[in-house]
């Protein structure tokens, strides 16, 4: 039991370290931005009207007050941490006065849904096929899959997403290429909306899956081809165990533990992919929000999204870490 406690404590400490470093990084970087949100807002307000120059000066001063930009960096830092802990990132400057947290709150379910579903599909399918390929090394279909995986896996998310967009949106236009659902649907648990969301997420999810599949496939295949030479596998085969049982409970089961760790390690990378995929397919998630916030020079929002992504990914990693003992009881080895 002590081993478990020590293990959990270690994971928790690591979690805190990650969040601390990450969030500080985000704060420091954002506050060095050359973009002046006040000028940005003035430009947005006045870009198409004829506004007298005296009026601008008045607007400039009232905006600075409004945005709470008066105060030293140190004061802003303290305010920032207290806000992070309360989950409140202040108002968005480009969507004033809507709080950043409500913008993120609206986008997060989209990203979380896309990410969780596609990651699960990817992970399960990749490991299953990779495991089979490692076990049945002579099977032609699986060998071919290996070749395809090697070919697709190293391509960056953007390129795959773009290729899918070209194929299914242009050459053979059968799938929606933009947005999260069709127009004029009531958001909620009704069939037209849910099916529309599913259809709209096919291409974004597919690009995440295609890339991810290869890495799990190749990883699992090489793990399995090593594990089949382990004594306990050979022994189980010697005992005449059903080959499905050997493959499932002996080979795959043991290969799973490192793959679960791998999942935790690659969550950040998967999130990167989601940002890019969302942008390509105009998907209404935090990735799109982040890129748009950068374009709009909305540093409150940029900071908020980055902080939330760092925390979300770290929580994901922590959850996997805490579940890990269920998969591998030998925690003291980690």
């Amino acid at each position, binding site marked *: 039991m002590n081993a478990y406690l020590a293990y959990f404590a270690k994971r928790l400490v690591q979690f805190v370290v990650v969040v601390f470093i990450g969030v500080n990084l985000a704060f420091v970087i954002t506050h060095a931005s050359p973009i002046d949100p006040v000028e940005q807002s003035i430009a947005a307000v006045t870009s198409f009207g004829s506004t007298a120059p005296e009026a601008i000066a008045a607007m400039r001063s009232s905006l600075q007050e409004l945005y709470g930009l008066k105060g030293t960096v140190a004061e802003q830092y303290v305010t920032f941490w207290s806000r992070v802990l309360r989950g409140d990132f202040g108002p968005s400057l480009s969507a004033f006065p809507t709080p950043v947290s409500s913008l993120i709150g609206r986008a997060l379910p989209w990203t979380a849904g896309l990410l969780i579903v596609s990651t699960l599909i990817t992970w399960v399918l990749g490991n299953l096929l990779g495991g089979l390929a490692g076990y049945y090394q002579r099977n032609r279909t699986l060998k071919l899959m290996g070749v395809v995986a090697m070919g697709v896996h190293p391509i960056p998310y953007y390129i795959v997403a773009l290729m899918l967009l070209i194929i299914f949106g242009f050459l053979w236009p059968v799938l929606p290429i933009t947005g999260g659902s069709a127009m004029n649907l009531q958001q909620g648990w009704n069939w037209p909306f849910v099916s529309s969301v599913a259809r709209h997420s096919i291409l974004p999810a597919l690009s995440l899956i295609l890339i991810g599949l290869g890495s799990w496939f190749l990883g699992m295949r090489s793990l399995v081809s090593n594990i089949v030479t*382990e004594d*306990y596998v050979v022994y189980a085969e*010697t*005992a005449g165990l059903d080959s499905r049982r050997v493959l499932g409970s*002996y080979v795959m089961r*043991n290969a799973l533990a490192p793959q679960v760790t791998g999942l935790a390690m690659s969550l950040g990378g998967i999130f990167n992919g989601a940002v890019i995929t969302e942008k390509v397919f105009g998907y209404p998630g935090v990735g799109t929000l982040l890129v748009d916030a950068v374009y709009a020079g909305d540093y409150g929002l940029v900071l908020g999204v980055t902080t939330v992504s760092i925390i979300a990914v770290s929580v994901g990693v922590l959850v996997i870490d805490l579940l890990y003992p269920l998969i*591998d009881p030998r925690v003291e080895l980690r």
Partner: protein
Amino acid sequence: MSGAAEQAPVLQVRDLQAHFRTHYFGVNREVRAVDGVSFDVNRNEIYGLAGESSSGKTTLIKTIAGLLKPPLEMVGGSARFSFLPDWDAVGRAPPEVVRAIRWRHLSYIMQGSMNVLNPLRRIKHSFRDFAWRHLGGSKAEFDLRAAAHLERVKLDPSVLAAYPHELSGGMRQRVTIALATICKPEFIIADEPTTALDVVVQKDVLGMIRTIQQEMGSSVLFITHDMGVHAALTDRLGIMYAGRLVEDGETPEIFARPLHPYTRHLIGSLPRIGDTEQREGLEGTPPNLATPPPGCRFHPRCPLAMSVCTTTVPAMIETLSGHRVACHAVNPGMAA
């Protein structure tokens, strides 16, 4: 069962040949790891196989047990079990037949027993995986049976709920033995089961194997390079060198009258109380089996080597009653 069958050997190995065939980086290699081995294992006896590492012991038992995986191939000969009369080797029987006899009739205690238990499975699951299909009954009945069997190897039933990493090395070894014997198989192959254990535990485990074997009347093919273990445990003993059997007979007989120079070397290298002088080592190393020396494979290292030894393979001759040896020095002029 008829009386004749009672007396017939459980395992008859005849002129068994098994080779490793590899093709890698453009080179064809054929390693003759087992080259014409013949011997019998009788009911209710422990037959020991001795020899240096890489003498082909493990390959031999893998071939006998039908655990042939490329690049290992059974090239010729037979290894016939009494409980599988229709096939001249396990490896040649169809997979479903083999599956049916495994563990029920033929079980295996493997080398490196520390790692033969699935680290992510509780012991009781391993028991169920290995034996339930043979023994039948409900899950609860089976678990009770497993617990009872564990007591035979002096293990607490609570062990069933444990993971392998929670057990000590000795306990794991005993679990392995229990696992291999729970179905009361006629034939048990034990490959260096005690090598990794410390001496006290080793003695314990050996005693246990003997006790269980006697209780069940099984036959055991016991492999170790440790002549001391053989002396203490086995009924009969075969000596292997470079893929061939060079001598076999009853264990006391062999220890009392070793005929082959290699056997003499093995026995002679055992430490004895009262030793005063440094024992003579054997010069040279075991041959590369991809290009084995012609004739008797021991001749490059043999203190008694003659010219015939370099050209002619010596035949395995029953020189004394129940004591066979393959050596030109012992049986002049007998070629294989």
